[in-house]
Structures are given as C-alpha cells and as structure tokens.
C-alpha cells in the first residue's frame, strides 16, 4: 500500500504545477511592477538629443506631472505608438519627455523630423545607462512622474487610446489635482 502511494507523487506534483500555470494565464506579463514606483527618478546627467551642449538632469523634470517615454528608432512598436503620442502632444495635457534609448543621434533626429516630434524635451541615452537605472525591460516603456519627480506608474508596451483612457488619464488627473493642491498650500 505504501508503495502504491509513492506512485501518486508524480500526479500530485503535476497538479501543483497545473495550479500555477492556471494562475499564470491571468497574469499580464506587460503589467510589470517597477521597483521604482514611489521613488524619485534616478539621478542622471545627459545631453539633449538635438543639442550636444544642453545638459538635462533629473532636476529638470520636476515641477509638473509628466510622462517619461522610452523610445528608439530600432523599435517597431515605438513606430506604432508614435501617432498616438503625437495626438497626446497636441492635446497638451502634460509634457512628454522622451528618452531616446540606445540609439544613434542622427537616426533619431531624422526620424523625428520625418514623423513629427511629440516630445517636450528629448534625453539622449546613448549607452542605456538611464534605461538601466530605470529598469527598462524594452522599448517602448512609459513612466508617469508627479510634480515632485516621483515615479508613480510604469507601463511597458505601446500606449494607445484604450490604455490612455482607462489607465493613464485617470491617474494623470489625480496627480495633477494633487499638484494643484500642493501649489496652493
């Protein structure tokens, strides 16, 4: 009888694994928790994409609720996301800061000249150091940053109408309201 029970071990192991696989189906791999949520933007000092002389630091991004968008010319999903960012930029809801991630300066500038530039400022992160500090999984990736320069939310993948309306916009409005309150006091 004891021997018989041993023969059930594989079945039990499999059932346990099945439970995890089942749970795994309902997890969204794009929904990555950032270790940085609730923490300030990592300190950096990088050149502006369009201008070698102009240095941008993490301090430059404070003051307003903003969207930090990691992009590159080598990334096909960024091209897909681009028209929607252009629309957002025209609506003028919040500044969009671009992080040009592991890219070539000339290529990036040419791309923006051709397709339009939705970014208030573009940070040139050539060797991906800032991306590494942010824990970027892959482009495109976006971060909602509040007026104190604290990262509030990260979204991996291209932003579209649905994501913006359902997830990002409500948070932006909440953060902007908080910023106003802060400014008043």
């Amino acid at each position, binding site marked *: 009888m004891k*021997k*018989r029970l041993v*023969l*059930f071990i*594989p*079945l039990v192991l*499999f*059932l346990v*694994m*099945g439970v*995890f*696989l*089942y*749970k*795994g*189906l*309902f*997890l969204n*791999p794009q929904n*990555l*928790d950032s270790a940085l949520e609730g923490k300030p933007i990592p300190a950096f000092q990088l050149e502006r994409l369009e201008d070698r002389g102009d240095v941008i630091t993490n301090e430059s991004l404070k003051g307003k609720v903003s969207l930090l968008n990691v992009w590159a*010319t*080598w990334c*096909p999903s960024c*091209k897909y996301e681009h028209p929607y960012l252009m629309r957002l930029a025209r609506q003028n809801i919040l500044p969009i800061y671009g992080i040009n991630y592991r890219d*070539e300066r*000339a*290529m990036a500038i040419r791309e923006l000249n051709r397709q339009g530039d939705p970014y208030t400022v573009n940070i040139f992160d050539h060797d991906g150091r800032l991306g590494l500090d942010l824990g970027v999984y892959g482009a495109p990736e976006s971060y909602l940053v509040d007026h104190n320069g604290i990262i509030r939310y990260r979204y991996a993948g291209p932003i579209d109408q649905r994501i913006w309306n359902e997830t990002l916009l409500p948070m932006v409005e909440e953060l902007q309201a908080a910023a106003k309150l802060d400014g008043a006091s």
Partner: protein
Amino acid sequence: MIPELGHLSLIIGLAFAFLLASVPLIGVARKDQYLVRYAWPLSYGMFFFIFLSVVVLGYSFAIDDFSVAYVAHHSNSQLPIFFKIAAVWGGHEGSLLFWVFALSCWAAAVAFFSKGLEEVFTARVLAVLAMITIGFTLFMILTSSPFERLFPVPMEGRDLNPMLQDVGLIFHPPMLYLGYVGFAVSFAFAIAALMGGSLDSAWARWSRPWTLAAWIFLTGGISLGSWWAYYELGWGGWWFWDPVENASFMPWLIGTALLHSVIVTEKRAAFRNWTVLLSIFAFSLSLLGTFIVRSGVLTSVHSFAADPSRGMFILLLLGLAVGGSLTLFAFRASEMKSPARFELKSKETMLLVCNILLTVACGTVLLGTLYPLLIDALNMGKISVGPPYFNAVFVPIVLVLFVFMGIGPNIRWKKTKPGELKAKLLVPAIIATVVGAAAPFLADGQFNIWVMLGVGTATWVTASTFRAALDITKDKDGSFSLARMGRSQLGMIIAHLGIAVSVVGGTMVSNYSIEKSVRMGPGISQELAGYTFNYIETKNVVGPNYTAQQGQVEVTKDGEFVTLLRPDRRQYNVRTMDMTEAGIDWGLFRDLYITMGDPLSRTQFAVRLNYKPFVRWLWFGSIFMMVGGVFAASDKRYRTKKVTEASKADAKKAKLATA
C-alpha cells in the same frame, strides 16, 4: 470554396479521430477482433483528411488567396514561392495544423510499420494517438481555425515576418514538431502498456525505435533552431535559454533519458516504472512547451499569440492528458520489484545515475523557465531568470553526467569484475586529464577552469567511447572485426562522440569568442583576432521583396586574402521592418561573422565583428547524434524479432480460432 473544403476535411479528420479513439477500444473490451481491426483503416483515413487540409492551406498560400485571414496575415504576392509554402507553419493557426498533421503522420506510420506487433496493443496505441488528435483538432477548430475568411478581401497580404523568411524556417519547425509530437508515440505505447497491464520487455522493444525516431527529429529541430538563431537573428549567439528554447530542450533531455531507460527495460526487464514515467514526462513536456509558446504566459522572442482563451484550452488539454495518464500510472504501474538483480558496479547503475542526472538537469531548466511565473502567481513580484542561473546550475550537473557517460559503455550488465573497470579506463582518464589541463594554455595561455573541465570531459567521453568500441570489435583471439558491432552499438558510439564534439564547440565558443563594435565605411579597416577587415564599399541590392544595403568587407590575414564577406541590412517593403543578414565565413576551427548595424553617417555604418572559434562543432555534433540515432533505430533486432513475434502472434490466433 477551396478553403472551406480544407475546413471540412479537417472536420472529417476529426470525425475519424473520434471513431479511432472509440471503436478499437470497444472492440478490445468486447473481444471483437473485427472492431479492433478498424483501427488501421481509421488511422489512414484520419491521416488522409488532415493531410488534405494541409494541402488546401498550402494551395491557398500558393495562389495568394488573401480572403483567407491566415494567408493575408502571413503572406504577400511578392513572397518567393517556397516561403509561401513554409508560411503554412509560420503562424499560430498554421503551426497548430502542422502539429496535428505531424501527429496523424506518426499514427499512420505506427499503423503501417506495426504489422508484426500484437494487434490489440497496436489498436490501443492508435486509439491513444487519436485521443490526442481530437484534443488538438478541437482546439484548432474552436479557437484558431486557419481557414477563417476575411471580408472585405484585402488586395495584398501583410507578408511573412522577415525574421522567418529563411531556409531555417522551412526546415526548423517541421523537424521540431515531428520530434515533439513523436514523443506522443512513446507516450501512447506506455499508456497502451498500462491499459493492458503488461509492462514487459516486448513493449520496451517495440517502443524503442519510435522513441529514437522522435529523438532524432527533435535533435535536428533544436540544432536547426540554434543554427537559425545564430545566423539569422544576427546576434551571433547560439543558445539563449529563452523559454521557447527551453520548451524544446526539456523534452529532449527527458527523451534522452527515456532512450537509455528503454534499453534497460528491454534487455534486463528493469526500471519499468521509470520508463513509463519518462515516456509520460517526455510527452507532457512537449505539451507544456506547446502551452508556453501558444498561451503567452511567458514572454519570449518567439511567442506568436497571447490569448488567455487559447491558453485555457491548452491547459485543459495538458491537464487531461498528463493528469489522466499519471492517474492511470498511479493505479496501474507495476508494484512488483524488478526480477532483475544488479550490483552497484553495473551498467544498470550507470544508466540509472545518468537518467537521474538528466532528469535533474531537466528539472532545473523547468524551474528556471517557470520560476518567473511562480513568483508572479504568489504575488512576490516580477523577475526574469537569465542565462547566469542556467549556466551556474545546468553546466555542473552536465559535467558530472559526462563523467558517468564515459563509464557506462565500458561496464558490464549485472556486475563487473573488480579491477576490470580500472584497467579499461585508466588510459582514457589520463588522456582526458592531460588534454583538459593543456587546453586553455594552448588556446590563449591563460588558466581557465571551465575550458579545462569542458574540454577534459569531452576528451574523456571520446577516449572512453573509443575504448568501448575497441572492446566490442576485438575478438577473443585478438583480431578486430567491425562486423562484431551491432548497429545500435555503432549508433551509441557515434551519438556519444557527437555529444563530445558539441561540448568542445560550446566550450570554445563560450570562452574564446571575440566581439568588437566599430564604425566602418569605405576605406576603413579593423583588426580582430589576427584578421584584418577592410571595408571596401556599400552596394545596393534589390531582392524579391526587399532592398538591401550590402557591405563588401575583404578579410585578410598576414597580408593574404581570406574571404569577402557581404553582410546585408535589409528593408522589407511590406512590413517596413529592417533586418540584418550576417556575413559569415565559416571554417572548421573558426567563423568570422559580421553584422551591419545602423548607418552612422552617409557612408559609414556601425558594424559588429565577431570571431567565433569552433562554433560549427556544436552543429556537427548534433549531426553525429542524429546519424547515431538512425543507426540505432535501424538495428536488425527490431525487424527480425518483429517477424518472430508476428509468427508467434499468428500461431496464437490460429490456436484461438481452432479452440
């Protein structure tokens, strides 16, 4: 009209599968031979109609029927014809169809080649294969039919993903699927044996050539995949421990263990539960692989579709197949202790140790693959497990495995005389130690423990395999004769040497590759590993469905011309996707590998130069393994014994008829 015929034909195939899964089993239960024999025509029918629907899908691709959604998404009128055909298995729906087709091929093959086996047993095997076919065909028809139509009909197709437009794609998935699905046959044999309650050595002997065949295809599929990743993805790597790669590697590890366990069961009637369990595991891991790839639970460069409803269906199939078979195993597995006795120093022990090591190695890969999911499901955050984990855990286990792998072929069944092993293996051990210790110093003069261990164990496996070959071919009077060696022994020797060759390749390329990212343009030259690379010019090349900028790089060594490399940067017209096509000069001891990156100025490009020593050995090794497998599978024993089995079975039948 034509695509609907394909759909209809698939449904008819499903109907055949339903009949095949029930009629022969009813026949077995009612002891009605007439019903049992229906298994054969039903298998051929199932195969024929599924084959027909594959042909129809291929035809829709060939005539550019973009009203079929799957064709519109994966083809384009400008796509060369052989890629159109290969696009049949280039996406989710089509690769499922191909999966089912491969399964029906195996079923038909089992029906065809099993004339000599016990009729009831084969009927059970075919019924089990039909059950699996039902599951996947239903999945395809209900959630992802490749024959769905589009309206309005698009003028042009979206084109096949450029990454997949390559000879690698034409052969890699079919091989891999035939391998994956091939383990369904050993699974079906194991289940049929459990159903019949006769776990004897006859079952193991029948199952062995099928297991070998599946293993050969899987070996081929994996190494083609690795080769494809090497030259097509342009990363210059050959193995990434990506979830999808792991998904094909795990069944291979277990399949390898199964191959060896089956030998023991056949020859010594031992390890019967092991063999059954490994058969179940090998196929379960194939299913798990399908689940991982098709459900998108793990993100990977390979994932085609991420759709929870599809994932749910596959999980259900996985649960039914694996849960059902493990339950059957728990109730029916033999409780009896094996009658075969063996001592610690015996071939049985060696094979058992190797099997355990292979299973543990597979377990570590499984753990690493599913760990991110596990942590996530327990709400402990998101992590990813990368190559450092796999290298740190997998490599040491495999190194230990190689030590036993050298002993196995040199040791006797049951027990070995004391001192015999030492006498045989002392020379190989000395050779391995010397070669291993010298290897890193010969390569670059620096101490490197991994190179020592890698080259050392590979030499050990080679030397001890040759020692075993020597013993097999040597007559008692001291003369040598190759005729003394059976085909399965020859196969073992070739395959084991293949492992050694691959290990040398893997070790060298992992430790001595040199890579350099540089800016290059006309007139610029660079040095790497003693070679001089002169960038001559950039040419514009027009392909059938792309345009490319092609660098012309002349390679010289010590002033002498070596080769002209032509790396491409391709722009595919339809998907507006850029692809790099590496320029490779291959050699037995080194590859020179150049990829063109982004343009840095009007004439200059970012170029990556690679020097990859011994990288070809990886794939030469797997060719050895496959050839070894073919020899082992074609061993005379399977044929002659089958005939005698058949005549015995006939005699039995005749007896029954007269009784």
